[in-house]
Structure formats: structure tokens, C-alpha cells
């Protein structure tokens, strides 16, 4: 197992004492198979117990450990040391306020996520005693990809539109709405349209595509958003040019 001396430069910010964030560098001898999170844990345990960051699963599924690594939004538990040079810069996810060190305030995202009604609004109610809804594998495939989002918010950090227009509901939240819209069991699309087809919704997106490039779970939010635009456009033409056609 090879080891390398790596300079880990971490953005530090303590709201109680600092006016501005500063960069602090730590030298860590890292095993080549480590991820950046391992290096942070090493620092926390051995060099500086005050360093603060979030993490839990260490297997890229809980979505806690999103941070900017060399300027790119990444999961620290899936950013392999061997892919980096001897100096790694770690900062909190951009576009989110910094609470402390690598910890950001994500309430804005949580509120937006909740606002799109991300739950099944059944097309037809079914009592438990009737068993499960029938859903063919091909129907499952229509939305499966969008269920894989771990809410890590890397896409929000990558999306310049969210940075410029903070009201933008953003990639992950709209993708989860799309996920339910595409579900054969769901009938709640028009409820969600009220929110996601608004100006702060999908129309803030100009298909930069950065969200999909950084998404660690290949959710492809960019794709979801364009599909929502297409569907909303068809809705619009239908409502305005053919008002007699029922929704």
C-alpha cells in the first residue's frame, strides 16, 4: 500500500470568531486507496479536533459529505486520493451559506424539496387488502433513475443558475417531482405543475447541464428538467390553443 504526503487545504470558518473564511493547510500522509474523507477523518482524529464537516455512510449513499474538492462538487467519500495531485483544496459546497468550516446551511434546499410534493398522489386509491399496485418492469424503468437521488446537493453547487437566482427550485427538487410524475401509480402531476412549471421552477434552467455532470448517482437532473419543460410546453399549448380539450 503506497503512501503519499498530501497537503490538504481546508476552508475554515468559525462564525463566532472569524469575519472571513481562511484556508488552513494540513499535511497528511495518505494511503493511495483513501478517499478525501479519510484524510479529513485523519485530521480530525490526529491533528485538529475542531475541524467540522458532515459525513456518515462512507459509501456514497447518505449524501452528507458533499464538498468542493479542487473547485468541483464531490462526495468526499467518493473522491479518491489517487486521482489528485499532492495538494488538495477542500471547501464547503458553493451556493450555500457556510455555517462553519465545511458545513453549509441546506434549509433552502430542504424547503424546496418539500415544496414540490415529492410523494405519491395515487391515481386511484387502493386498500391494503387488495395488495400491491401492478407495475410492469418497463413502467418502473420510466422513473427509476430519478429515484436514485441521494439529496447530496452537488447539483445545486454545480448549477450556475442556482447561484445567480437563489429562488430557482433547482435540479434535484424538480427531478424528484418528475420522478413521481413518471410513476404509473401517480396521478398528482397537475398539483406539482403549479410549482415546478412556475418561473422559479423549471424555467430558470437553461440547460447548462453541469448538474448531471457532477451527479454522483447518474440521476441526470438536466434531462429530467428538459423533459419537464417539454411536457409543460405541451400543456401550455394545449391549455391555450385547445382549451376545450380536458386535462
Amino acid at each position: 500500500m503506497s503512501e503519499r504526503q498530501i497537503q490538504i487545504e481546508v476552508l475554515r470558518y468559525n462564525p463566532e470568531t472569524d469575519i472571513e473564511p481562511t484556508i488552513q493547510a494540513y499535511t497528511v500522509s495518505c494511503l493511495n486507496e483513501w478517499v478525501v474523507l479519510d484524510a479529513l477523518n485523519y485530521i480530525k482524529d490526529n491533528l485538529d479536533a475542531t475541524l467540522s464537516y458532515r459525513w456518515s455512510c462512507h459509501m456514497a449513499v447518505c449524501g452528507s459529505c458533499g464538498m468542493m474538492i479542487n473547485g468541483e462538487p464531490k462526495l468526499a467519500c467518493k473522491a479518491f486520493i489517487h486521482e489528485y495531485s499532492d495538494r488538495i483544496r477542500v471547501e464547503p459546497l458553493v451556493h450555500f451559506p457556510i455555517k462553519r468550516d465545511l458545513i453549509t446551511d441546506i434549509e433552502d434546499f430542504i424547503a424546496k424539496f418539500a415544496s414540490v410534493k415529492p410523494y405519491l398522489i395515487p391515481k386511484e386509491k387502493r386498500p391494503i387488502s387488495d395488495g400491491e399496485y401492478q407495475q410492469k418492469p418497463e413502467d418502473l424503468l420510466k422513473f427509476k433513475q430519478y429515484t436514485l437521488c441521494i439529496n447530496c446537493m452537488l447539483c445545486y453547487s454545480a448549477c450556475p443558475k442556482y447561484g445567480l437566482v437563489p429562488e430557482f427550485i433547482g435540479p434535484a427538487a424538480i427531478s424528484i417531482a418528475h420522478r413521481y410524475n413518471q410513476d404509473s401509480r401517480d396521478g398528482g402531476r397537475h398539483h406539482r405543475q403549479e410549482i415546478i412549471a412556475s418561473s422559479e421552477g423549471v424555467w430558470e434552467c437553461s440547460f447548462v447541464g453541469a448538474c448531471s455532470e457532477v451527479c454522483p448517482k447518474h440521476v441526470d437532473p438536466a434531462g429530467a428538467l428538459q423533459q419537464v419543460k417539454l411536457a409543460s410546453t405541451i400543456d401550455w399549448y394545449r391549455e391555450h390553443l385547445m382549451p376545450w380539450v380536458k386535462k
Partner: protein
Amino acid sequence: MDIIQTDIAIIGAGGAGLRAAITLAEANQKLRIALISKVYPMRSHTCAAEGGAAGVSKSDDSLDCHFEDTVGGGDWLCDQDAVEYFIKEAPRELIQLEHWGCPWSREQDGSVAVRPFGGMKIKRTWFAADKSGFHILHTLFQTSLKYPSIQRFDEYYALDLIEDDGRCYGLTALEICSGQIKHFEAGAVIIAAGGAGRMFQFTTNGAIKTGDGMSLAYRAGVPLKDMEFIQYHPTGLPNTGILLTEGCRGEGGILINKDGRRYLQDYGMGPETPVGKPALKTMELGPRDRLSQAFWHEQQKGNTLSTQWGDCVLLDMRHLGEKKINERLPFVRDLSISYLGMDPVKDLIPIRPVVHYCMGGIHTDINAATPLLGLFAAGECACVSINGANRLGSNSLTELLVFGRRAAMSAIACIQSIPRLGNKAALTAKAEDSQSRILALVHKSRGSETISGIRKEMMQTLEEGAGIYRTGESLSKTCEKIAELRHRYTSIALNDKTKVFNTELLQALELSSMLNCAEAVAVCGRDRKESRGAHQRLDFTARDDTNFLKHTLAYYHPKDPPRIEYLDVVITKSRPGVRDYSGVRK
């Protein structure tokens, strides 16, 4: 100190906590529900569960079958009335999740698909590819957003239960982002704070699984039950401990030693079954305890492969083919490639047993009620005793649902029937005490011990003394060591005095929880002088139903090791018998 008034407080927003919250919200819109969690709900470790959730749904299966598999798998330490209830409710809960949108994998005809799991005679595990827990958690979290009465307190760390005169009246919790301590006044409290696998160095558990919930109840006088039973999962990645689900074997993966032999046949799980045609309840589909123990024996015989990460055996899935692996085990493939640089489609994957699950936990009865009035528990932190001495894979996710709901219903019944007459002054004083304890910890300026130092020693001693195979001697040593560590813990001091997001403080609190749990593990283990399920002693190799067909109860003591008591196992219809995974029997 701020007081937050609520009807029912839930500690933990993993699968069990969310299921409880939704039950409460549906039962009565007017209930004030406080859902308290130290991480945002979707970060809870339920998200890591891969394989699936068991419940009888197909016509070739039966409740009796699920019952037998579970009780036998648990080496007859399960409370059979609880198991019966669990099994009866299981299908209902899984269907309910389906109705909430859980993306279960499907058969061609549109019905929910099931896969085989270890120790089961019939395929009955519902799965959503190999991200079952992830989908369950997210479905529950998203569904919970429907209910405005569920008030979430995300990133609040529960500190102490507030109890007076034998009844629980709420808790104190630290608002992590501000460092302030809040007093939650509640008519009932449900603990759903997950497991404690982080006591061990090599584990599939996430950083948050530090036994806080167990410790909360334990310190409030509620016993921890059957803590000696720690499940090792046979197939973890050797470098990180990341789990490769039992589904790998369920779909047909095989285990071989360094000579290419399917060694499980040498440990009572043979005869060998054809490669790629797994037979239920035998060979690779034996139960976890047996498989992990077989590894240990292979290691003793020198049949394991020595790698840079220690001794391993090999998991061979190549014969499944790329298509099936992508469809059924995409996450496993992704994890192996990312974290080990090996692709199960073409490589043999080295694996070794890894600490995975705590069978033991907060003692509850079949209603999810603890002996402390007003306190309930569900999920991995609880021990209703459906898992006995060894949990069957995929029973736990279902347990979260069944007993999460059960705990909620019991809590409602409790606040309706039992008046809430706490002594205000006494309760406030207790809350103040809790606050002072934390402030003292933060402000203490000089300490001779470090958190990481004590943690490391704790992990080491558990590994040495309470691993797959144990002896009286190793366990006694571990007991002493942990008693010493608990004592030394009082000499730690924090470097971080910041209020906002003081993660060092959290680590200190978590370490104390783990030490409490670890001591229970070691002491309970030392006193159980038999081998049963996941608790295997080299000095008492046989199961001893005369003396130990009993649950161990550990009672907390602030300074000394816990007091141990025993409780009879509830047996309704299945007398202890032989656990047979030879595949010979029909």
C-alpha cells in the same frame, strides 16, 4: 432553556422513526409530533441497507414458514409471540410502502418480485434492486412531507431522557447548529435511534451508529437486552468494511477459499449445490452467523487468502453475467469497482466478515413499550426479540416498519390513557442538570485523554474480546478494559469550545454512548456461558437450553459495570431444535 411542547417526541428519523411519525400523523391530525434527529432524515443509516425486506406475499409461502425460519435462524432466542405478530404484520407494511411509491423491483407480470436470502426456506425478500433500504428510507421521508403535523428537528442531538417517578416526560436535546439545549416536554417518547456497530473498528455501519438511543434508555434505568449478540456479515469489502449484500449470494454468487473450494460444505452447510443455482437455506444461503464462523475456521486452517487488508475469502459472481448484475446488483458492482477497483463481472471479489448489526438493544415488550412508562423503542436500537441470537437477513427493514408503527400506536394509547402529571419543578431541575452536564463537558479546560485515543482502545478490545469467537478469558479482559476506559473517559477535555456545530462535542457524547453499549456487550457475553447464534464461545461450545434459554438484561450503573438479570424466552409453538442448513432435509 427553551421549552418545546409536544405530544409525542420521536428520537431518530431513520426507517423506524419515520414510520412511527407517519403513523402518528395519520392517526390523529391534531397530535403534535416532534421528530428529532441528529442528522437530516435521509442521512439515517437505513439508507445503506441493500438487500431487501422480508414478508410473506407469494402463494408458495406461508406465515408458518417465515416463523420457522426466523425462530430457527435466531437459535430459539426469539420471543415467539413477537415473531408471530411481526410476521403477520409484515406483508401489510410492505404493501403500504408500495402504495406510498417505493420502487420495488417487479416481475414481468407487474407484481412485486422476491429474492432469496440466507436462512430462508422460501424466497420472500422484497427488494428494490440492491438499494432497498435507501428506497424505503426515501419513500418514508418523502411521504412524511405530506403531513404538516410532523414537526422536524433536524440536526438535534438527544442528550437525556427526562423522567420522574417512573415515567418518561420528554428529553433534552442539543440544537447542533446553535449549541443551545432545548427541553422537549412530551407525553411519550419513542426511541428509534438505530444501532451501535461503530463500537467496532471494522463495520458496515455509518458514523452515526453509535448507540445513542440505547445509551439514553440505559442511563434512564431501562435494561439493555441480549447485547452480547453482535452480527457479523460474512461479505464485507476488506479495506473499508463496505457491505456487499446477501443478495449477491441470493442471486447465485458463491464463496470460495484460496484453493477455489466452496468451503461452506465443510461446515455443515453442504452438500455443494450447482454453481449459479443456489438452493435455499443451504451452502451460500445459510445464515450469517454460520457463514462468518466458517470463515473463522478457514482462517484458522490457513485456507484464506492473505491480502494487504488481511485474510479474505473470495466471492465469485462472474457466472451471473453482466446483465443480471447490472439489473439486480448495480450498487454492489459500483461499490466494488469504486472502492476496491474490482469488477464482479470479471473479478473474484475478496471479502471478509464485518460487524453489521446489533441483535440486542433496549428491552421492549411486544407492544414496543419499555419498562419505563411513556417510553417506547423501535428499530435496531430496540430489542423486541424477534431476532434472537442471530437476525435473518432482511428481517430488520421489515422490523422497522412493523414496530415503528406499533410503537406509535402504543404511544398514542399511552398519552390517552395515562394522565400526565409530572412534577414540573423536578422535571425542570432534571433538564437543567442535563444542560449543566454538557456545559461542564464543553468548558472543562484540561484533560489527559483524547476522544480518538479512547475510541481506538475500545474498538481494539472489543475486536479482541468480543469477535466472532470469544472465550471467558478474552471477554473478562475486555470487561476490565472497558471499565477502565469508562473511567478514563472522565478525563477528556474538548479543544473545541465553539457553540455552532461543535462536532467534537458530538463525538465525545457518542463515545460515551458507545462505551456504555460496549460494556453491556462484554459483560453480557462474559456471563453467557454457552454458544448460541452469533455468540460463540470456544470454552462453552454447545448451546445450553437448560441454563441459557433466556434473555440477558443489563442494568446501567453510573460507575460500575452493569447488573445482569435474566428473563425467560417466550415460546409459543416451536421448541428449541437443531438448526439444520445441510440441505439434506426436505
